[in-house]
């Protein structure tokens, strides 16, 4: 299928028009994915100091596995525990989130910069100062999400 994509800051809200002669499973899946884009992801239920909090996805900086726990860091570097596995969170969160390694998901809007390392991985520095790394396995996907591949 020929795909045309126009990128411009003039579009305040993204929209897509598909010219098709019949609906197929793949197209239905694509439509469903596109509809999720920019849709508000539900707040995550997180725990800290035996209290439960609802964190808006836009406030989340990084989610990663630390030992057996899934930990979420917000913009202010507050640390919360989550009770969902990473793969489930990856499906729940919107397009602003990207998997950077087997054990971490980052909010693209909260990334400050990346740094090269000698071993082929890239260090990710979040705006709140937390660092993690983008493994080589997920680098391609990361670049695709940024529109670089």
């Amino acid at each position, binding site marked *: 299928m020929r795909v045309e994509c126009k990128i411009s800051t003039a579009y305040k809200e993204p929209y897509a028009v598909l010219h098709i002669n019949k609906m197929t499973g793949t197209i239905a899946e694509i439509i469903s994915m596109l509809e999720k884009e920019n849709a508000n992801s539900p707040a995550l239920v997180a725990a800290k100091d035996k209290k439960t909090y609802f964190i808006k996805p836009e406030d989340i900086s990084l989610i990663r596995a630390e030992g057996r726990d899934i930990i979420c860091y917000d913009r202010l570097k507050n640390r919360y525990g989550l009770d969902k596995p990473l793969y489930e969170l990856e499906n729940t969160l919107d397009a602003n989130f990207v998997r950077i390694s087997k054990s971490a998901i980052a909010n693209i809007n909260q990334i400050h910069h990346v740094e090269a*390392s000698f071993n082929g991985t890239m260090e990710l520095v979040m705006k709140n100062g937390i660092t993690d790394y983008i*493994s080589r396995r997920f680098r391609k996907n990361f670049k695709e999400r940024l529109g670089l591949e």
Partner: protein
Amino acid sequence: MKRTSKLIIKYLLFGISLGCTFFMVTCLAFSLAGREDILMLICKDFARQSAGAMLVGIAGGGTSVIYQFDRPSSFSKRIIHFCVGMGVFYPVAICLGWIPFYPGNVTLTLLQLLFTCGIFMLIWFCFYLFNRSEAKRINERLRELERDNAGNEKG
């Protein structure tokens, strides 16, 4: 598990192709330099020479598959990659006559080892430069996205 096996096979083939490419480029360089005498030596021992090149390719390039895994730590990965790479390259290179060997002369042997390590470090440094330029591209894109987001928020 299936994905891991596929990844290992992919890197194994990458290592072989890397070794073969180096082998071909070296032969080409000798040919262009008019060193048919060296090419004749390689041809006479072609099976061993090409197998050696592939083996070194696997040890140096193929073992970089380790960076695809989350464990062990980054430092350990570097050490494993370096040790396997050097551990295979050095004996193969001596055995196939790629580098001279000075039995009994500790100073020369050490200097040679240091030189080989230097080449390995140089290759690493080249990869670092490549990663650095990629990081620069990513950072530029991140700034662009940030500007777009700021513009959209104002709008």
